[in-house]
């Protein structure tokens, strides 16, 4: 038993004289790992249309039931996504979210992504309900959406190749 004690404490002794490895967060930050699951974001197609088609599978699979959405139909005049259906209301309650990533996994159009952003503390609890406007990635070029190719009004929004 003495031997084991000496073996154990020898490690303690050695570490006592080595450099500490504590990271002084938030002054110092460790780099994020590639598959980190942080704050959600809703992606766009290259032509600026929203990827989300409002199918509701993320809300159905969510074990914390923190996603609420309502879908509606694209019109000739106002097109948000390729195909017939788009997401009118999209809300995630980030307080309830357990960041399991199921929504990302189930999404048939890769619209929802859990990004690397981990730091979103706020003083008002209401701000933790992220709506579509805050989740959707900003358009690269501010202003009007590009002209919608014919393929978009025909496709269901599900086949990625027909869009790009």
């Amino acid at each position, binding site marked *: 038993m003495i031997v084991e004690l000496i073996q154990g404490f020898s490690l303690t002794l050695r570490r006592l004289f080595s450099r500490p490895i504590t990271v002084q967060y938030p002054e110092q930050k460790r780099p994020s790992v590639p598959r980190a699951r942080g704050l959600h974001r809703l992606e766009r197609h290259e032509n600026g249309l929203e990827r989300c*088609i*409002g*199918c*509701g*599978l993320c*809300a*159905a699979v969510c074990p914390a039931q923190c996603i*609420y959405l*309502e*879908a*509606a*139909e694209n019109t000739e005049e106002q097109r948000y996504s390729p*195909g*017939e*259906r788009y997401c009118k209301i999209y809300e995630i309650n980030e307080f309830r979210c357990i960041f399991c990533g199921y929504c990302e996994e189930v999404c*048939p*159009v890769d619209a929802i992504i859990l990004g690397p952003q981990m730091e979103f503390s706020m003083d008002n609890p209401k701000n933790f309900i992220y709506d579509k406007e805050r989740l959707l990635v900003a358009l690269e070029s501010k202003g009007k959406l590009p002209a919608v190719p014919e393929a978009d009004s*025909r496709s*269901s*929004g*599900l086949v990625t190749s027909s869009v790009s």
Partner: protein
Amino acid sequence: MPKLTIDGKEITVPDGINVIQAAQHAGIEIPRYCFHPKLRVVATCRMCHVEIDKMPKLQAACSTVVREGMEVRTGTPAVVKSRQAILEFFLLNHPLDCPICDKGGECPLQDYTLRYGPGHTRFVDEKLVRVKHLPIGPHIVFDAERCILCTRCVRFCSDVVGTGELGVFNRGVHAEIRVHPGRELSNHYSGNVIDLCPVGALTSREYRFRARPWDIRKMETICGLCSAGCNVNVSVRNVRPEVVRVEPRENEQVNGLWMCDTGRFEFDRGVREGRLLSPRIKSQTGRASCSWEEAVLACAQGFAQIISRDGCQAVGVIGSGRCTNEEAYLLKKFAHDVLGTKHLDFRLREAQHEGRDFKEDHLLLRGDKTPNSAGARAVGLVPTDGGLDMSGMQEAVRKGTMKGLLVVREDLLAEPGWSKSLLDGLEFLAVLDLLQTPTVEAASVAFPLPWHLEMDGTFTNANGRVQRLRRVINPPSGVRFLGDVLQEVSRAMGKELDNPPFVELWNKIAASVDAYNGLTLDQIGDQGAPRPI
């Protein structure tokens, strides 16, 4: 009564039925698309293939009538292989856009593919491109890519409704369901093709993208838009509750499996935006929302003043065929016991009179567009003992002998003979209604009432069938039930109106109304109970 064996199970079934139905008796499911119990058998989909002893090839179970000693097998390797092949064919050109399809989640094509399908496809070519989201009528959207050509919709329109708007055009892989040139799918029963369609080819324009099947719950109730009293399932969204659609519920005695487009698509006509949500009172400055206490007090004072000066017979009560039996009963009690008037009627329209409510077509539509005229007559929302009927009350208002009027669930100004100036001649007009009607605008005091989907109660349909109306959704805050309003007004007038909970109230009505004669809610059940009217 032939005796046959299905998968080793020996059963005796009624003569003349087919193998699918016989299997159903034995508790065995045979998958099918084109077969529907209410439609002509065509055996086009081939999904119901089964093996029958002494027959050389697989047989379509829907077009094979049961025979004595038949031996049917539904799970042999040949049947399994056939089902897989059929499903693979169906899915050859199917777009697989289930995530955006309204049928997704309650789709027999999804279900059978999961249960009986091959799970993969060998088709490597480009899928056929066909017309998508094409409106083919006021209520129906058609998607040709999803269609599997079962022709249920075609048979429904030609055989059940008799209008025959739909047909199959072109041949082979290019065959498509289309509306005949120059026509649109606009018959009164077009919504039923949505229920009939086993895929998402025919979907509703009203329900389009409003919910997914797993987000809603179906609640049993009855339609309140005409005197047929069709049994329906109402779908209510679980999160942020809202009624999203109405579908027919099977009742062979009333509507079979169908319902009309009015009940299905116009169930919330006016309710979304035009609702009265708080009591209103007329003052010198105009009409404004007010608290319940103020409204109740104003109502009680208004009637008490007239009664003390001109007597009980200077006030009249106009009920409605839209009232449930319970509401009608309480309103009658209020008129007789609290106001003390004999002038009480609800028959604003010709079809609400006994024996005047005729069928408008060969299926369901009826002339009386209120759900409970028969019930209101039975409960006694009619003048008694020399009281004035509707035309009599109208005349009395014109002459000025009737000074106060209580109107429930009716928009008088929409009916012939009633006018704004006539109502302005009244000293006091109290209106209780669901919507902000012109009559509500003209009222001295108005109270909001719940929608028929927000109440427990009973309706009696044109054939005298008493049916349960169930609360599928809660009324908005600030809306109270008729019984509660009348009870409070009674108290303010110094009288008492007994307003028990629904079950107790029904038992009371059943005991006191001759036509209902002790009918219990258990007897009514979910299919209703016939009563002589």
